[in-house]
């Protein structure tokens, strides 16, 4: 009976023909990471920025080998204020120090401040933001009111005021670091920048928390820790990385600004900000290189970091159209 109703058909296909392929359904399996990388490579400004920033970072990192002279190698006033030439590629300053070398060494301070601030602000912001988002309720409310107040205030004004604390208060010197130190810069910049990260992460966690897969994880009895570490963190890591990139850019700019006004790094140390600060006195004297080169390196670096952040944001957003 059965045989007459359903005549046996040969369901086995010739071995060399793949049904999916025949119907054009074959898709190469691509991991999310590879997709993100692909999107990032397609973001032209970000790729250029990565290369440029890579070169700058390597030069700065290996300053002792790359720089033609030492950070404080003084050639004397006789060789001071030389415009760019074969001995001093970027010219020399009042004491006859090589500007290029000082820029390379100074970059270590500026970039260190940028990266360290981003790391600490990113970590603090992520922890507090995820607690607020995950726990909700009163903790969340208090935190949001607090960040409301913080976020509108002029960043620079808060920084200037906080910068003054270690000058007069012993506890602030212990907690924040000595005036003029790198630690003080990193501490106060992180203290004002973690707020944005916290808000971003909280927002993300709040929306992910309601997703069905979290509900199903809960239903099968997953612990909070499991949900946070296996679902929430991997899903917000993109936001965290992007937020931290933008903090790097902001922190480098803030360090330079504060140092320019004598409120940042110890003026005796080279950083991009202090180099510009000491050049400020010579603006009208026509020593243009003292202003131009540190400005350019600062602008190029911050711009590259911003472009990379933009590229990462696009790359880590899976909704971005692949075919575009």
């Amino acid at each position, binding site marked *: 009976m059965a045989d007459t109703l359903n005549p046996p058909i040969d369901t086995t296909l010739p071995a060399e023909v793949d049904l999916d392929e025949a119907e054009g359904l074959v898709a190469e399996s691509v991991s999310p990471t590879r997709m993100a990388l692909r999107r990032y490579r397609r973001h032209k400004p970000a790729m250029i920025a990565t290369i440029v920033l890579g070169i700058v970072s390597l030069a700065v990192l290996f300053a002792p080998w790359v720089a033609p002279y030492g950070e404080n190698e003084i050639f004397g006033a006789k060789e001071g204020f030389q415009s760019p030439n074969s001995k001093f590629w970027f010219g020399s300053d009042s004491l006859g120090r090589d500007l290029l070398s000082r820029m390379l060494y100074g970059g270590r301070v500026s970039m260190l401040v940028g990266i360290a601030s981003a790391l600490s602000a990113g970590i603090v912001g992520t922890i507090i933001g995820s607690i607020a988002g995950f726990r909700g309720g009163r903790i969340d409310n208090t935190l949001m009111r607090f960040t409301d107040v913080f976020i*509108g205030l002029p960043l*620079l004004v808060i920084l200037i005021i906080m*910068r003054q*604390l270690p000058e*007069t208060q012993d506890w*602030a010197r212990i907690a924040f670091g000595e005036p003029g130190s790198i630690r003080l810069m990193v501490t106060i910049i992180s203290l004002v920048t973690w707020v944005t990260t916290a808000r971003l992460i909280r927002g993300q966690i709040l929306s992910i928390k309601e997703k069905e897969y979290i509900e199903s994880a809960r239903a099968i009895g997953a612990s909070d820790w499991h949900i946070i570490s296996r679902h929430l963190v991997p899903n917000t890591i993109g936001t965290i990385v992007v937020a931290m990139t933008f903090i790097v850019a902001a922190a480098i700019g803030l360090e330079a*600004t504060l140092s320019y006004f004598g409120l940042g790094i110890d003026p005796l140390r080279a950083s991009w900000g202090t180099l510009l600060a000491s050049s*400020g006195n010579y603006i009208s004297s026509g020593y*243009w290189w003292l202003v131009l080169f540190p400005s350019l390196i600062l*602008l190029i670096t911050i711009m590259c970091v911003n472009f990379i952040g933009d590229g990462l944001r696009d790359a880590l957003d899976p909704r971005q159209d692949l075919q575009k």
Partner: protein
Amino acid sequence: MLRFVIRRIAWAIPILLLVTFLTFWAVKAGTDPVASYIRANPRVGAQPEKVQAYREANGLVGSLPEQYFRWLGNFLTGDWGTSIKGNRPVWPELKDALANSLVLGSVSVAVGMTIGLLVGIVSALRQYSKFDTAATTAAFAGISIPPFVSAILLQVFFAVTLTAWLNTDSPVLPVAGVYPPGHQGFDLGLRIKHLVLPVTVVAIQIIAVYSRYMRASLLEVKNSDYMRTARAKGISERKVVTRHALRNSMIPIVTVAAVDIGGIVGGLIITERIFQYKGTGDYLIGALGNGDFPQIMPLMVLIVSSVIIMNLLADITYAWLDPRIRLG
């Protein structure tokens, strides 16, 4: 709506008190008025009774909350005290600085917003065109350049480079001050000339940020369903853009603009200091150098309150402009 407004205002008052208290504590701890007083008057350092008299005359006795409320009372009744250095009344100097800053700030905002929004609109309407790419790159440069860097680069260019090229005796554009040294009275031409460079510096930031906001906002609206509906109804493209797209895309901009006052104030402080423009930024950094608590505190309170008030206005405007907002 009215209930919403009242509730928001009611919220703003405790926040104002809390923030001014924190500011009071931070500024006082950071400047240490008594130490500044002794520094400004070295001879009284050895006379504890004079220091004590200063403390009492300026309400620096008792617990911190006590000091704060005494200060708040004085502030609200218009008793803003005298500066530590030079013992001059605070208000007249602060008033002049505020007036100058308001001029610089409002001109920069007007110029920056007009250009920024126009650039953003054109960018969005011609997405991925050459103009759009150029504007995007320029905006990135504008966002990335710290205002002090653009300020000193402009100074070098106008005071040194251009002067050398054109062989003029004086700089093409003045790079410092509100008026030339020793100038008396009002002169519109000179005033504008002195404003050009500072306004450029502040406006660069505003243009960079707002052209991006405007572009993003208009693009989002452009792809929404009601735009398609409007087109389907046969409304002319021009009307679709002006009536539907632009109007709706302005809503988020208004909010950001009001909240962004903090960023503008930050830019002003830097710009004024570098161009020796006698505004609040110059005043603030000068006063900090002397640790002059009575001079700093009123300005800080004004900045902080204007930020909170602008935030409040932004919330209310937002709710008013967009009926979809739930007045929660």
